[in-house]
């Protein structure tokens, strides 16, 4: 099918990268415009801080420009810049020592099987009963309480839609380590949100 939109987007991106590598600033700027929103959101999700997220955004695209000759087209341009952004974001956290993560529950019961402790149902559409700012605060605090690599795995997989394989390569983890971290991250966030959202707990 010639009108497959995904194929045309991918080809377009390949062409832009080629032009940018050949020295076209306009092509590079087009790539920046295409991904700046996602990179800023990722920076916010990893660092939780607007100043850090802006620095991550700037450093990511500056480094991308400087290292463009090293980019080999065996991965997507997007995953290549995500790798830069993740490294910048995690570095910011280390520098600031702003890590607010807590030890994760291991969720293992007495028989060694994994089972969450919190099983109360939530109110329907709990987000609709909160002001946007209040909801943001709850989501951010829960995310901040995850150790940085667990948080990063969660946002790359569940929010940015990277594959398990891409996430593994990007974080130098095995596929099974990514799966395990994603599972624990989801359960931890769920438990944190349950504190506010469960029924009969207004």
């Amino acid at each position, binding site marked *: 099918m010639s009108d497959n939109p995904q194929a045309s987007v991918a080809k377009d991106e390949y062409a832009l990268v080629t032009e940018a*590598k050949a020295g076209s600033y306009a092509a590079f700027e087009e790539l*920046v415009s295409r991904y700046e929103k996602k990179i800023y959101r990722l920076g916010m999700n990893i660092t939780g801080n607007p100043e850090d997220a*802006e620095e991550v*955004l*700037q450093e990511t*695209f500056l480094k991308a420009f400087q290292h463009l*000759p090293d980019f080999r087209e065996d991965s997507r341009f997007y995953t290549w810049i995500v790798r830069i952004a993740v490294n910048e974001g995690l570095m910011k956290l280390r520098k600031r020592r702003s890590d607010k993560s807590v030890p994760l529950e291991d969720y293992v019961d007495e028989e060694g099987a994994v089972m*969450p402790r919190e099983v109360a149902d939530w109110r329907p559409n709990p987000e609709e009963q909160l002001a946007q700012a209040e*909801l943001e605060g709850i989501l951010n605090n829960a995310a901040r309480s995850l150790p940085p690599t667990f948080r990063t795995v969660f946002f790359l997989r569940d929010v940015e839609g990277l594959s398990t394989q891409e996430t593994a390569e990007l974080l130098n983890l095995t596929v099974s380590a990514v799966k395990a971290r994603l599972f624990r991250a*989801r359960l931890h966030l769920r438990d944190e949100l349950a504190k506010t959202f469960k029924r009969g707990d207004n």
Partner: protein
Amino acid sequence: MKCTDVMQELSDYLEGSLDAREKQELCEHLKKCHKCQVIVDTTQKTIELYCDGERFPLPNPVRERLHDMLRTKCQNEPV
């Protein structure tokens, strides 16, 4: 299928990567087990809340500063 098996398969279920037979077994269990149904639903809801596209929009001044910085530092440099 036991509750702990559901937990083992939760990630694959949420990603839609269970095969038909595994999925059917899991759904059968969920129909009978309120506890597992709650865990599946609330985990799904958790992911949805974080996926809201409205979270952390790129502010215009931040975008402008990015493009100004890149233009200054990159435009006249050979790649």
